[in-house]
């Protein structure tokens, strides 16, 4: 499951196209949206499946794949319990 999705950057031709991405109802990280300086494409980061990437490419967006989902999933690695946390805080 985790391997099926990818962290991506989606590039749009202009700001209007970037806003229209909201209509696709995808897992795009709104806080990462950038209008882009002069000469730069507006962009946003997200977590998409291959099928979703295909839909965006077909709709005229450029999608750069940055990483697999699993490579940035660290929540379950080395879960810290209270005793270890307090020890690390000098208590």
């Amino acid at each position, binding site marked *: *499951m985790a391997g099926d999705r990818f962290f991506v950057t989606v590039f749009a031709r202009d700001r209007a196209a970037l*806003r229209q991405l909201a209509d696709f109802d995808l*897992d795009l990280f709104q*806080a990462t949206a950038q209008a882009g300086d002069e000469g730069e494409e507006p962009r946003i980061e997200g977590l998409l499946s291959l099928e979703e990437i295909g839909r965006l490419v077909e709709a005229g967006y450029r999608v750069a794949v940055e990483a697999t989902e*699993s490579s940035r999933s660290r929540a379950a690695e080395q*879960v810290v319990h209270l005793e270890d946390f307090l020890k*690390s805080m000098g208590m």
Partner: protein
Amino acid sequence: MPPTGYLSTAAIEACVQFIAGNFPAIATLIPLREHSVEGRAIHAVRIANGGGANRRGVLLIAGVHAREIVNPDALVTLALKLCQAYTDGTGLSFGGKNYSAEQIALIVDALDVVVLPLVNPDGRTFVQSPAGQAMWRKNRALNPGQPCRGVDLNRNFDFLWSSGIGTSSSSCSDVFKGPSAFSEPETRNVRHLLDDYPNLGYFIDVHSYSELVLYPWGDDDNQTTDPSQNFQNPVYNGQRGVVGAGYREYIPAFDLDWYLITGARIRDAIADVRGRTYTLQQSIGLYPTSGTSDDYAYSRTFVDSQKRKVRGFTLETGQEFQPIPTEGQQIIDEVGAGLVEFLLAALCAVEQAARLTDQTRSLTGLRRVRDRASTTSGAARRYLEMAERHSGELASLLATDEALLTDVGAALQKLSSLVSSPDKTLDQKLTAILDELGTRLAALASDALREDIETVQRELPDLTGRTLDQIVGDSPEAAKPPTTKGRRNIR
């Protein structure tokens, strides 16, 4: 040695209880009214030395979105460090940013700091479970009759919830707003805290990621000139959040100034930790939203004027949801510095002086004057903005100079007599007292504060002979800049 991973849900809950149990003089456990969807008990902790209605309250929350793994750890770390530093009489350091023991004492002595580190424990448990999904965002609501689980808690607050701006009605969406505003126990818990602690006037919701300091509003661009264009006005339904529709959301100019001043302080404190400069910007960014926590908190006073104004920010920390733990520790330091700076900004030097000199009965009248001044464009509003800009420093100076504090208390008593006697004017004697206090403060102050104090001192002669109404009011006399003619240096 810092932790080499992230706290489990159980460890966060246990840590909150540990803080309350180990620092009973200043930390109080707050059991939240509702359990999570999956039945987990949730606790906040209130950190304060003392009580009473005149204390300002600050609410700090995190863990609304499950996959944003660093922020609950950051809040329990800050709560623990704050209690430990206060108890030991020490300062706090976050990378290159340091706060003195006096500043920490001031925060705990003057404020009610309510910390809710993990709003969404079910989501975090799912994210940390080998059988779960590391990138799950929502809570774990069952959504009966619908195909997918979970509600986006940060689209479930009662701010333009029914508008659908930036949200989805599909349960499978990551921005599913839920079946109704506050349909989820986790968002209702935040509302309960704001209701149950009516002195809460400051709020930060810590999210990830993108290194942003965000201020309201999130539904449309801000404007400060047309109060009728506001989120409650049905005439504009359908126009909000639509590019080119001509609608912009009203925010009082004084509030916007406060957000810009305070947001810059938070940003700069974060930058001092290790040089990462967060961007301060309005929440809307490129995508309008509704149902978010910070807009809800701030909107409450506009919906019901009996409710205290709650000024809220959202922090977007770091550059990914689940950074490697060493990077996570740096982010925890950044959050610590940004939030301590926010706590200092929440301090009010006037309230501090009134509290410490037994002048709290003067506060009600002075608050009325403050609230009125904040809606004008007169000199008093500029003075208020100066006070907001330097709140932490002013409070620190008063806390460390007893003689100065006593004299400020006496001046407050005299000023409050102007409030109770509307025809009374600011006489030369009181002007001279204020000028003398200004000189003493300036001698101890930073360059920026000294500059502002000197500005006020230069303008004092022009205020002499005026009633409080004339000083605060929006009359041309009050609003006009002081003239050179007739100004004298009364020092």
